[in-house]
């Protein structure tokens, strides 16, 4: 039988804390519309928001323990039947972080910690369902049958995806902060072409969002998932804070990724280019040839001009050119098209709401949902720590889905870029006109089919 004690409230302090802006935590589905949509990161708690566990040291009197719990912000508490341990329910206005801090300064307290949420494992055989609380809102992963994909392959850090973009929020360095949902993601040494050092931090937002689709930390009870979450990321900054770069810069980044060695190996197997330009370039063409010649698959965005012209370098024949579809598997209005288009992947359309958890429209626009920092906070306040989950659309967002599948294929044992491209194209779901067409290329990627067809786990 549980023993529950009631602790007296401390209304005065609670009122002060309330006035000081201590609000109850936001719920996971409290999203709101700004320029795009963002979900407050703190909404994704992996623990009970209104109680904590406290263990007292032997010898502490019950009355003293009750005083300490009251002083720390407890309203009532339930004592364990098996130890000097309490589940302390907090009074209104008390934030968990502050309560834990107070407990930890008290000499009679052995430890104090959050009351983590435990879920029963209900994995279907051959499928893997991650515990990330907002994963079900990643319609783009549901569309690609991601759970079946992960049942076959989750990736491995021996396979590295180089994300050539505006950088990634991968480290605490100067004014930059590591994104909270990269907690277990493995990063290898990156490169910043503007500063010629390894600090390829994102000062735009774009690169972090793109990289998150590839390998955001997954099944960690935080936020959302990444499609090749077991693989490692290499941050390579080739675009500036405006999202602009040059052929020279991108070629430099490609050569860095191509030549990178670790323990005598060349771990970079995929280069993601969610970028492009309007004109061709020998510098870029040769950098792509060197990468592909070194066994690296290059995946690039078809472009967002709604035009019948594929961006460069996606237009190169040895690159996988990726277009975008919306939540209905219909070509996104912005997505470029043409004879060089290889496949399409979810890129979304913020003007539509065709999807949501379990395929039911959820009142939110259909963008690709991933973490990044708020670029407005960065621009206005110079802060790169305002992380949220944003719905963003574009062929930039479609591209990392394909890069992730390429990475998983490498982990399955495919070693040649041409074979990776063939696996992805030949297993795509035919959309639009029968057979390959310029609007959808070979169709919508089907990761599980590509892995099952070519994998070692068959």
């Amino acid at each position, binding site marked *: 039988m549980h023993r529950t004690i009631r602790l007296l409230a401390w209304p005065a302090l609670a009122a002060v804390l309330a006035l000081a802006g201590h609000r109850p935590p936001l719920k996971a589905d409290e999203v709101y519309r700004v320029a795009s949509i963002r979900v407050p990161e703190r909404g994704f708690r992996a623990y009970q928001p209104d109680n904590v566990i406290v263990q007292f040291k032997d010898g502490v009197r019950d009355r003293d323990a009750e005083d300490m719990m009251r002083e720390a912000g407890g309203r009532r508490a339930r004592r364990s039947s098996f130890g000097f341990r309490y589940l302390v329910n907090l009074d209104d206005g008390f934030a968990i972080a502050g309560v834990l801090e107070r407990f930890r300064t008290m000499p009679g307290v052995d430890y104090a910690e959050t009351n983590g949420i435990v879920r029963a494992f209900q994995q279907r055989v051959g499928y893997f369902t991650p515990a990330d609380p907002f994963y079900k809102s990643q319609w783009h992963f549901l569309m690609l049958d991601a759970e079946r994909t992960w049942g076959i392959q989750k990736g491995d850090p021996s396979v590295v995806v180089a994300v050539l973009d*505006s950088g990634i929020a991968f480290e605490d360095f100067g004014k930059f902060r590591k994104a909270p949902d990269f907690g277990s993601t493995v990063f290898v040494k990156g490169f910043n072409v503007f500063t010629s050092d390894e600090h390829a931090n994102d000062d735009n937002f774009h690169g972090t969002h793109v990289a998150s689709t590839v390998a955001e930390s997954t099944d960690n009870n935080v936020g959302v998932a990444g499609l090749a979450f077991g693989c490692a990321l290499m941050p390579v900054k080739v675009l500036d804070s405006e999202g*602009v770069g040059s052929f020279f810069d991108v070629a430099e980044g490609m050569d860095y990724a191509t030549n990178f060695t670790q323990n005598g190996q060349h771990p970079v197997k995929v280069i993601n280019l969610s970028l492009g330009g*309007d004109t061709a*370039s020998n510098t870029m063409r040769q950098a792509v040839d060197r990468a592909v010649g070194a066994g690296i698959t290059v995946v690039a965005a078809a472009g967002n*001009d*709604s035009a019948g012209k594929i961006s460069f370098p996606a237009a190169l024949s040895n690159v996988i050119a990726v277009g975008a579809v919306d939540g209905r598997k219909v070509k996104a209005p912005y997505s470029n098209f043409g004879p060089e288009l290889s496949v399409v992947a979810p890129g979304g359309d913020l003007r539509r709401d065709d999807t949501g958890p379990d395929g039911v429209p959820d009142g939110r626009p259909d963008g690709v949902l991933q973490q990044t920092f708020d670029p407005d906070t960065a621009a206005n306040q110079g802060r790169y720590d305002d992380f949220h989950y944003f719905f963003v659309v574009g062929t930039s967002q479609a591209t990392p889905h394909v890069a992730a599948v390429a990475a998983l294929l490498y982990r399955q044992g495919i070693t040649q870029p041409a074979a990776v491209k063939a696996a992805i194209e030949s297993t795509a779901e035919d959309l639009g006109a029968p057979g390959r067409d310029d609007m959808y290329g070979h169709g919508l990627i089907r990761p599980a089919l590509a892995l099952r067809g070519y994998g070692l786990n068959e």
Partner: protein
Amino acid sequence: MTESKPPAKAARATRGREAAPRDQEAKCLDRWLAERKLDPYGSREGTMYAGGTPLFDERTGRRVDRLEYVYKKHPEARAACAAKPAGR
């Protein structure tokens, strides 16, 4: 299912008159950009953009008009190519 009717002859003619100056303006701008070795967005040739274009905002899904985008960067291009109202 509703079937959209083809536009009336008069309407087609009006749209044609509106489109023609716009096309001419775009051609003028493309010439202006090429003479200065600039890309279609008014940046140096060889410029790369997130998503392949500066005209589409991936955060909002909104697009800006290319001519207006270039004119904002290069006001002198507007002076050279912007269509003048009829009768002036």
